[in-house]
């Protein structure tokens, strides 16, 4: 069946890179799974051909692609190995956020190495105490994907009362986003999970690490982009970039699950039945529902991203309803992908339970990916709150 979206906004050469490294990622996926973090082979593949600098600005040596290209590349990678897709998404998102740092900070993080790996912990927040020249950061960060390869650990921090540079008492402020050097963080061995095992999303601890002001910024809806980040990409919302990325991992999983079962259906005869799977009405209905779920989830996601990107290009600010539309498109794409994958797992019958089947791993990967709070069912309530003009319960939506 034809792929339905083929927009000229997608950078064809990066898609070509993504397709070329697919077989390598697929081959490395067993190793990543068993060592519970990406193998060096997978890291090297992802580091090739500019993928790691997709969201870094051109003036700093990056590709500065649009969100639609980002989404397409992530889906393509995830079709080969969801853990690799997830591991590409994360460093890029936190590199993207360097655009909101003071110039000195962005230079320090990306100036020498535009391909630096980042990891981050979003909730619950760590604590930051104001001191002369910056903050003292402490606490435990959860789900720090790819932390084993990261040079920098980003984190949301709650700011406690402390001292300003003149030794006077400084009040608590709004939450901030900080980048801590990797050597100041201790990784804990916590990532023993059902799926997405290759992402190495362990927890970490920081104790009294100093973060200078130029490696921190306040988490607010309004921001000023750094002087190396004047392109429209950096006016796009964080939630928009997350929406381009994480649901795309799930779309990639669903796509492969369908393809695997379609192949299986050609050959498999369910135990106890004389007719092959492909001639069974239940298979017809399942495959159609899975394709429909995948395609309609994808269609709304891209329609939304394209519309808001074109509005950004035209110089508009991201509006309240843009923000709620983003949440809705992401949630829908995620849940539809999960539904499609479950249909395919069900359809495969016992063929799907064996670990040597890709379907078994993709099913498990999906079960973990779908628990992410960016787009669980609870986000429907978030959309509903914004729809009725209430402050959303999930504040990330506004960033």
């Amino acid at each position: 069946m034809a792929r339905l979206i083929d927009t000229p906004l997608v950078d064809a050469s990066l898609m070509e890179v993504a397709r070329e490294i697919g077989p390598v990622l697929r081959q490395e996926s067993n190793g990543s799974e068993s060592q519970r973090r990406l193998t060096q082979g997978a890291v090297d593949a992802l580091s090739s051909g500019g993928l790691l600098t997709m969201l870094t600005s051109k003036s700093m040596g990056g590709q500065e692609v649009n969100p639609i290209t980002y989404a397409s590349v992530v889906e393509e990678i995830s079709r080969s190995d969801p853990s690799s897709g997830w591991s590409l998404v994360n460093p890029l998102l936190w590199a993207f956020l360097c655009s909101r740092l003071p110039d000195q900070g962005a230079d320090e993080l990306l100036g020498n190495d535009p391909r630096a790996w980042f990891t981050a912990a979003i909730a619950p927040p760590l604590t930051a105490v104001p001191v002369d020249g910056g903050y003292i950061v402490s606490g435990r960060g959860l789900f720090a994907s790819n932390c084993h390869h990261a040079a920098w650990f980003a984190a949301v921090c709650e700011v406690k009362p402390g001292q300003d540079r003149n030794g006077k008492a400084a009040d608590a402020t709004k939450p901030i986003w900080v980048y801590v050097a990797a050597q100041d963080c201790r990784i804990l061995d916590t990532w023993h999970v059902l799926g997405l095992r290759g992402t190495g999303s362990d927890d970490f601890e920081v104790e009294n690490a100093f973060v200078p002001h130029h490696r921190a910024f306040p988490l607010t809806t309004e921001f000023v982009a750094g002087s190396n980040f004047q392109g429209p990409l950096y006016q796009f919302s964080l939630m928009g970039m997350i929406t381009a990325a994480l649901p795309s991992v799930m779309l990639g999983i669903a796509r492969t699950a369908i393809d695997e079962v379609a192949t299986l259906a050609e050959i498999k005869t369910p135990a106890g039945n004389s007719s092959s799977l492909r001639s069974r009405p239940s298979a017809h209905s399942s495959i159609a529902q899975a394709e429909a779920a995948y395609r309609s989830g994808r269609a709304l996601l891209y329609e939304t991203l394209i519309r808001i990107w074109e509005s950004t290009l035209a110089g508009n600010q991201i509006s309240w309803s843009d923000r709620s539309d983003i949440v809705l498109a992401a949630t829908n794409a995620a849940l539809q992908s999960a539904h499609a994958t479950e249909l395919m797992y069900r359809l495969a019958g016992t063929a799907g339970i064996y670990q040597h089947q890709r379907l078994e791993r993709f099913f498990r990967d999906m079960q973990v990916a779908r628990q992410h709070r960016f787009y669980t069912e609870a986000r429907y309530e978030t959309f509903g709150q914004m729809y009725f003009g209430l402050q959303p319960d999930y504040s990330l939506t506004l960033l």
Partner: protein
Amino acid sequence: MASTPDQDYIQIAKDLGPVIQQYSDQAEREGRMPQVMWDALSDAGLLSLLSPKKLGGEEVDPITYSRIVEEISIHDAAAGWTLTNPLLFGLLCARLPQQGALDILGKDPRARLAATFGPPLKAVRVEGGYRISGYGPFASNCHQAAWMGAICQVVEEGPDNPELDINQRSRLIWGYYPAKDCQILDNWHVMGMRGTGSNDILVKESFIPDHRCMPFGAEYELGPDFQGPLYRFPFIGMAVGGLTPMVLGIARRAIDEAAALAKVKTPAGSSKLLWEHPATQHKIAQAEGVVRAGRALLYETLNARWEATLAGEEVTIDHRADLMLAASTAASNAAYAVELMFSLGGTTGIYVNSPLERCFRDMQVLRQQRLLADGRYETFGQMYFGLEPDFITIVI
């Protein structure tokens, strides 16, 4: 050519909103579209939307057509049906010999057409044409029609032995006869979509000359007045583009009505307005999400196919499956959304003066329509695996 979709036409449809709303209850009560509503559609040029420019029609693109049906259906899905139905049967005139098309659309490009598309009537070969008879269900808007279309099975005179083609399959034709030749039965007493006047009809010995009929199948030639790209667009695509927007319209209306209700209603036993309940926020979002996703897939699929048609590309069986799947998905999503909104409305929605009640009933009927029914998921799966599809319209 004009950019797609043509916003001027869509504005015309929007402007008809008040008149549609005004006569919607009357249509529901009388089981057919009131003449004044039909005239309004006709005067606004909507009944000649798909007729060729050469015959004085509008010949709009499929996307514009689809958007217009959606706009009308937001106010009244039965009106959307009564608009799209004659247009689709008028469109098939493109495949007639020239004289037939002139008979029907030549003097007046407005499609004053109804048809029976279900079980075939019987046609007996006679000098210069066919003599047809039989019983046909669901002849929507038959009360307004000047011409009736029909699928007919060609049979031998006498007992109903079908004439078989060289593959031993019974031969089907599609033809047009004067609407006055059929008797309309009073049986359109239904749960919803009441205003469509989809009564059954009886025909006895009506004559169809050869130039007003053609073989019913995948092979055809376009008449000389029908050389624009619109007529090369697959018929299944036009059916998808014409029917699916109705479910989208109903769902849009249901969500808007439920959201408005939620702002004023305090459910019995609660101290808070409906919209303050998390369950309300949840349902509104689920409904918006599934409706928007179905709609995005519909227009994306229609657009892709229309651009391919403009570029002169062939229509493959996969394209046809894609079009049909977009319709099934949008319909199933929209039906789910209306369920959610109906449940949100609580007892408010059970009263017959509630728009939610109307939306719910209309949706329940529309989702049983062949193209929009759940069964099409199986058809898609058959095509996906390369089997013969069970839904014949797909190849037309």
